[in-house]
């Protein structure tokens, strides 16, 4: 067996098991996936392999014999395949199948569950910092409502009564919209809910939520939206990505104010989202670390260090790419690129 520090994995079977394995293993730097094979050309894992640029090998003998695999992972759950692989594997290659393969499958599923938990707990930790913003946005309309209602108790001019009653109704609507936004944001992202999501609407929703987490007072806002920008993914998770990036951008400009620019574009079958600030920037030596779990520049108790890690996890899952361009004291731009979402008949309810 080659001991280069790399495990070279060949995956046999591209059903849901193979698909999940690809999603997990391709993110581990010490694992190289040398190829995947499945008899069924429409297997979901093969599509995922194409997106991840992992070689699809038509025949199992070719996959196990000619691609330098040190480990064959058989997720077909097919006894014939098990027998075949044991008989034909190269002598230096290990096989994972049968109950050990099922064990791995269970661990993979467990890992995805933990990932979802991590996302949820980071989100809930962040909501604590919304308290001041929420209190401000609820108590202001309440003050208006109370003031008007006190006045109405004595108001004799009927036109004024009508006007003020309408003002109260509008203020109540504004207040209930706050609760609607927040409950949508705080709910657990429902799994496997990939739908077509209009990006611009999600960005606007994220902006409303980010206002609770940070002060937009001295920030100039520029939006340049391409109307048809839509991607395929989980709307709740995409919202979380945008809230995170916008909040970071605004925090970076906390000291001196600045300009927040949000752009969307559609080009060559790809949807681009750029979120730029003119804030403090990220030191060049820190940039490689920003997507690592528990990396934070915020003071203890202010950030979980999981924000950008979760952002990257979600973007990866949506088959997208995230890049960052930053200069100290000039600002930071996050550039996200997703495959353009095609209508599936299931429109994302944004």
């Amino acid at each position, binding site marked *: 067996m080659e001991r280069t520090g790399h495990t070279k994995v060949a995956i046999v079977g591209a059903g849901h098991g193979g698909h999940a394995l690809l999603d997990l293993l391709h993110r581990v730097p010490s694992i190289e996936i040398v190829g995947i094979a499945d008899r069924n050309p429409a297997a979901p894992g093969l599509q995922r392999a194409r997106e991840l640029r992992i070689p699809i090998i038509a025949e199992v003998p070719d996959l196990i014999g000619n691609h330098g695999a040190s480990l064959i992972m058989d997720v077909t759950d097919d006894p014939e395949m098990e027998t075949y692989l044991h008989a034909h594997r190269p002598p230096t290659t290990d096989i994972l199948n049968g109950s050990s393969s099922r064990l791995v499958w269970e661990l993979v599923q467990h890992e995805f569950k933990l990932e979802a938990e991590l996302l949820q707990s980071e989100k809930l930790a962040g909501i604590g910092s919304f*308290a*001041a913003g929420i*209190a*401000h*946005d*609820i*108590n*202001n*309309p*309440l*003050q*208006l*409502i*109370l*003031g*008007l209602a*006190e*006045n109405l108790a004595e108001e004799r001019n009927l036109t004024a009564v009508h006007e003020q009653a309408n003002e109260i109704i509008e*203020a109540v609507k504004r207040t209930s919209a706050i609760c609607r936004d927040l409950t949508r944001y705080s709910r657990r992202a429902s799994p496997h809910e990939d739908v077509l999501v209009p990006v611009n609407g999600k960005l606007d929703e994220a902006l409303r939520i980010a206002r609770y987490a940070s*002060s937009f*007072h*001295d920030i100039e806002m520029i939006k340049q939206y391409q109307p048809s920008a839509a991607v395929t993914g989980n709307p709740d998770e995409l919202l979380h990505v945008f809230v995170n990036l916008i909040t970071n951008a605004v925090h970076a400009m906390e000291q001196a104010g600045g300009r927040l620019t949000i752009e969307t574009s559609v080009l060559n079958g790809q949807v681009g989202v750029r979120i730029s600030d003119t804030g403090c920037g990220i030191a060049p030596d820190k940039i490689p670390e920003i997507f690592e779990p528990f990396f934070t520049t915020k003071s203890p108790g202010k950030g979980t260090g999981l924000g950008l890690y979760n952002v990257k996890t979600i973007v990866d899952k949506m088959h997208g790419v995230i890049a960052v361009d930053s200069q100290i004291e000039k600002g930071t731009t996050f550039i996200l690129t997703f495959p353009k979402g095609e209508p599936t008949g299931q429109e994302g309810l944004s």
Partner: protein
Amino acid sequence: MSEFKSGSFIGGETCEGRVLVVDDEPDIRKVVKMTLQKAGYEVLEAENGEKAIEVINSGENRLLLDVVICDIRMPKINGAEAVAYFRNNYPHVPLIVLTGFPDTDMATSFLRQGVVDYLVKPVEGEKLRAAVARAMEQRELARL
């Protein structure tokens, strides 16, 4: 120095005093004004700390402004900065903080700086008028 009491400068109408309301929300300025005008106060408005400082430094306000009611979470110069400015430059003008976010630490720090009252929105008209009346008493004492 009782001749500086603003009431005596506003001819004809009864004027209980001149109050400056500092809040970035026009709705809040409107209802606070409505509430205080009913009690006979003259109400000036400013949308942030910077404007508030402009107002207090303009013309007769330097002498005639009696009470400032100030929000905290505002753009430009925020409420905390404005409060510090007023305390340093116009220590005789009583301040009332009217905020949407109850924060005990902040309240303590403001009261220590000599703020008359720390009110949390939504506040009843009666309570607000009582706070302004208390502030007016302080203002009168400062004039003696």
